[in-house]
């Protein structure tokens, strides 16, 4: 099989041209994850080699000029770095050049780092939000320590091999503490700080693409008892959206999470399900485009990984000129992706 271009030709137009202040929603399910599509977004925004994008001439000036902030709640830096490497994208170098910033929502979101053991646990009951006091472990927020010697960072004295130099590409580690909107505000402030920092870097382009990977996890793992619901989360996203050029979000759209809430009358629906459905559907109504990933209804196939449905969202800018499409995709063993229409191959 011939090797595939990093950006599937059928998707280039969708990935590269988003109108200003637009929101793209990517939904995934258990068996059809969205990471590959997020990586394609990264590639289309960050890559400077335009060989595969030659078809869309006028966009080339934008390519490579964009900046990206990736906030990931379910996957660590190592995963994104390694997978982007397969596409020929060196995220560590790009973050040195202030074109890319990774915000780590996995490592220390709920568990305080080892050295801060004095404060035992982020018990959900502990009210108040001394969020900023636990953060300094990563040093000042501005420091994306590219090739800085490890010893320069006091926090890294912590014995371990796990603190590999690779981790230096992480711009910020999020901490969740406190409850309710106050806790969300702290997270928002952290992320905006990273965005501003990227904007401030000397470059002609101000366009920042913000990708948030699975913010719905934050909702599921906190919930009403910690004062966070779908409304608060939507406002949180809205607040972040204001600071960037375009936004892309991934959420889970498994049937128990979306459809259980609709089973009205029954007492079946739990808060997790209800809030999740409200959040995801609310986002879809605000989005300018929705990319749905799911597996084949007819069962697994050897040469198809899943179905990608691209449709307009309910947002304002969604009405103009987006081609609605349903495509099949196939992830090959080496990580490259083939996207094709039904009946083609």
């Amino acid at each position, binding site marked *: 099989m011939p090797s595939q271009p990093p950006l599937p030709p059928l998707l280039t137009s969708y990935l590269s041209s988003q109108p200003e202040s637009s929101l793209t929603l990517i939904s995934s399910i258990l068996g059809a*994850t969205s990471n590959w599509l997020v990586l394609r977004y990264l590639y289309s925004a960050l890559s400077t080699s335009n060989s595969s994008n030659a078809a869309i001439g006028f966009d080339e000036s934008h390519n490579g000029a964009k900046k990206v902030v990736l906030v990931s709640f379910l*996957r660590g830096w190592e995963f994104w770095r390694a997978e982007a490497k397969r596409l020929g994208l060196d995220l560590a170098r790009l973050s040195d050049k202030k074109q890319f910033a990774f915000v780590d929502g996995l490592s220390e979101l709920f568990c305080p780092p080892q050295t801060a053991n004095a404060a035992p646990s982020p018990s959900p009951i502990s009210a108040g939000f001394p969020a900023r006091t636990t953060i300094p472990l990563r040093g000042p927020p501005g420091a994306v320590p590219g090739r800085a010697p490890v010893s320069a960072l006091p926090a890294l004295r912590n014995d*371990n091999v796990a603190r590999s130099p690779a981790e230096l590409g992480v711009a910020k580690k999020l901490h969740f503490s406190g409850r309710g909107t106050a806790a969300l505000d702290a997270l928002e402030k952290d992320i905006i700080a990273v965005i501003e920092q990227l904007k401030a870097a000397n470059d002609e382009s101000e366009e920042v693409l913000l990708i948030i990977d699975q913010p719905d996890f934050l909702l599921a793992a906190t919930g009403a008892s910690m004062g966070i619901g779908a409304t608060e989360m939507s406002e949180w996203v809205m607040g972040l959206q204001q600071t960037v050029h375009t936004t892309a979000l991934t959420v889970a759209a498994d049937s*128990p999470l979306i459809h259980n809430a609709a089973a009205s009358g029954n007492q079946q629906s739990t808060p997790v399900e209800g809030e999740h459905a409200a959040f995801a559907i609310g986002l879809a109504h605000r989005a300018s485009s929705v990319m749905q990933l799911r597996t084949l209804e007819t069962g697994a196939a050897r040469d198809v*990984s899943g179905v990608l449905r691209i449709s307009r969202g309910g947002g304002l800018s969604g009405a103009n000129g987006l081609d609605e499409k349903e495509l099949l995709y196939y992830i090959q063993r080496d990580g490259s992706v083939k996207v094709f229409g039904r009946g083609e191959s």
Partner: protein
Amino acid sequence: MSFRKRNIGLSAGVDRAAIPNASAQPTPPESIPGIRPSPDDGRPTTSTGTPSLDGLLAGHAGLPMGKILLIEENGTTDFAGALLRYYAAEGVVQEQKIHVVGVPEQWGRSLPGLIGTAESLEKRSDKRKDERMKIAWRYERLGEFGAGIAGSRDAPTPTGDTDAASKQAAFCHAFDLTKRLAHPSITNMTFIPLVPSRGSPFVAILKRLQDAVTSAGPNTIHRIVIPSLLNPTMYPPDACQPEYVLQFLHSLKALMSAHATRITAMVTLPLSLFPRSSGLVRWIELLSDGVIELCPFPHSADALATSGAATSQEEPPQGMLKTHRIPVLHERGGGSDQNVGQDWAFNLSRRRFEIKPFSLPPAEGDKEAQDAPASSGMPKKADLEF
């Protein structure tokens, strides 16, 4: 600098031409027992203690390090517990550190006894032992899937002698459920009890896991065993509040990604209490790297099961196994594995847990059922024509 580059290239492992220079393997060197590079992309993997489960994991021939495997089970049987015991026993034999959450120490005493390497069991049952082809000695140490690709990267054993091969550190062992494991390193198991506390019961567990992992040396390999997560006989009622259990799993994931080459975890979940159709369970699944569901046949299906064996030597399947998510493969997008979407059946015998493709039995002795339609509901040929 150049070292880093090479390291990255290897873990990406796209083209097989780059693979054979085994000198630059990623972090755990092959000298650590029980760890071997995946034949698929060279990442370190460890055995689950069940050869056929290793084979199911998308060509990696083992559980990749840093991944959580969730095993769900329907009904009241304890097949998942057997898998978990194999997993723990394998860890004991490989002298890894085992952390068992929530069960008393008796659990550790009921691990199945060691009866040799998995390969030796295979050989005993393998009737074609004598007619083994000459070329096969290179491959025999490897799992059954992806064996072809794997062969090239494995350092050739000095002799073709089978004794020499068995002296090599085995990757997977065979265990006997009727015996009890007696191994010097069984003391490597630590049991983390659930202590009643206000707030999340998981905070204390997580802290102990963190301390254990960070205080151990960089060459210690850990296995985290969580039997029957959320089972109300062990966990307090409020443990299944989403903010407690999901935050725990997220932190566990964080811990494992921070020490990605040193930890694996296996979790079992009783589906009868927490059905897959609930949002909470779906989030638990989404947080796991691999999700496998066991559906044991009810007793009424015994008839089917007995005739389900293709031949009289094979043992009848005891249930169906579904793979919902497979480590690494689905993280990338999924789908390109030949094992995904197959129907699997499993069978637990004294000596092994075997997973094999499920096939419906030929309808033997089903005369009445075949004759019956003629008289009853089935439409006649004439009715179907138009």
